[in-house]
């Protein structure tokens, strides 16, 4: 009985760590794809260091929204753009962020996963399923 238990524990542990590893690999691949999109579409404004441009383009590095749990908001910013001049972490930004509505669901998931896992940011990945769900509700 004890033996069976040990075997079971070992099997479960291997399984869990294996899925974690494939998960990590999937996230790493998503981050890599997201980086390419970031360089082409976002870096001009948000800069290589994610620091944005003071008073003009919001920083993504250390942003509470980028690192936050309101994923719908992030997807919406990409699909619709952002030109509301809202207060972001105590500052206002004058430039207009264009919608990137031509990006596919997977590309949006990738670029968001990239900005949530680069510079000092450490937040969970955003999945294709999440983007699909949120985007279908956006008019």
């Amino acid at each position, binding site marked *: 009985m004890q033996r069976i238990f040990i075997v079971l524990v070992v099997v479960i542990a291997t399984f869990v760590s294996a899925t974690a590893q494939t998960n990590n690999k999937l996230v790493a691949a998503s981050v890599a794809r997201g980086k390419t999109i970031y360089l082409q579409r976002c870096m001009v*404004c948000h800069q290589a*260091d994610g*620091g*944005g441009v003071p008073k003009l383009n919001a920083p993504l590095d250390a942003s509470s929204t980028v690192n936050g749990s309101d994923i719908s908001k992030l997807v919406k910013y990409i699909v619709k753009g952002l030109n509301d001049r809202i207060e972001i972490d105590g500052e206002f930004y004058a*430039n207009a962020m*264009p919608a990137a509505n031509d990006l596919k669901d997977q590309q949006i998931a990738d670029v968001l996963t990239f900005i949530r896992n680069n510079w000092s940011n450490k937040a969970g990945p955003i999945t294709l399923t999440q983007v699909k769900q949120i985007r279908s509700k956006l008019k």
Partner: protein
Amino acid sequence: MKKVTQILVFSSLFILVLLASTSTFAQKIKPDADNAGLTLPAGFAALKVADNVGRTRHIAVNKQGAIYAKLERLDNGKGIAVLKDTDGDGRVETKTTFANYIGTGIAIKGNYLYASSNKEVFKYALNANGDIVDENAAATLVTGLVDKGQHNSKSLTLDNAGNIYVNVGAPSNSCQEKDRTKGSMGMMPCPILDSAGGIWQFKVDQLNQTYATGVRYATGLRNVVGLDWNNELNQLFVTQHGRDMLNNLYPDMYDTTVSAELPSETMYAINKGDNAGWPYIYYDHFKGKQMMAPEYGGDGKKTVDDKYINPAMAFPAHMAPNGLLFYTGNQFPARYKNGAFIAFHGSWNRSPLPQEGYYVVFVPYENGKPTGKWEVFADGFSGKTVVKNPRDAQHRPCGLAEGPDGSLYVSDDVKGTIYRIMYQK
């Protein structure tokens, strides 16, 4: 007779002492040991006259040497700071504030101070000491100018015939149907030009003027932040921020390097009715040509000739010329007289190349025309040898003003440092 000579000797001695004391007064203004962190041409020195004033856009200096600083953020609810050196050491001892609006433009002409919010222009009377007569008695000269956040600075300058010139920047990059959005076409004709993307002329002695009563003096100017009246030529000069994002919007026509180097930042000599061509063209200083904008059928090669005015001077891309000043003083060596100083705020859209600008440039003029060569006059504001990311810059030059003794003042809108540059030999 003896008495007369005595008096003469006495009074000339007195005058000598007086002269000596005024010159020691001037000499008391010691530059900072490190020249305020700036690199300057030989013979020039600098000091920080004030620090942490608050994000200062443009500045004006009155005849008594007090500095009026237009703030971009309210300081205890106020948007203009008055900075005074009370003991003659050249450094500011007192700061007071007034006016309940943020903005960029500020200028002194005759006995009046003019200042702008991002929508209006105000006028204040100055007394014989150069102080505001009544801070609460602002006369509203202009109202209802476009402010949509982007390019909303209302910089201003005045001529000698009772007119004030106000820039209204276009709230747009290139007048696309959807601003800065890939695949979106340019609107034809660009409707923004009706109320922005140009310089408007108003009267200094009429209240509550609007677009309807003002004159669109020049159009086709995307975003002018530096403008100055050239008294030698009796003509308006402006510096324009060229468009952004050629590569992001048209990756097939422009690679990232070309997009970092184009289009030129430009300075124009303006006559009434001029059209500088935005959004239909941009300027390419490598080719010396006006290029058709890709939103309007351009492909990076098609030029547009003889339709719009040419710049008086062109500069590398994206450096953001925020302050323009024609030097009229006698303190600097003769070659600077009637030449142009330009404060470059510094670029943000040259990545992946390092950013450029973050310095004050001098453009020599000869016979009323720029010689075509510009030189970096004051560098080191950013505190970095290379600025990779704009947030790394410690200071960014924005406004320029000439003091009564011919010193050049430079303002910074990161922390609000005010620099004074003097010639010493």
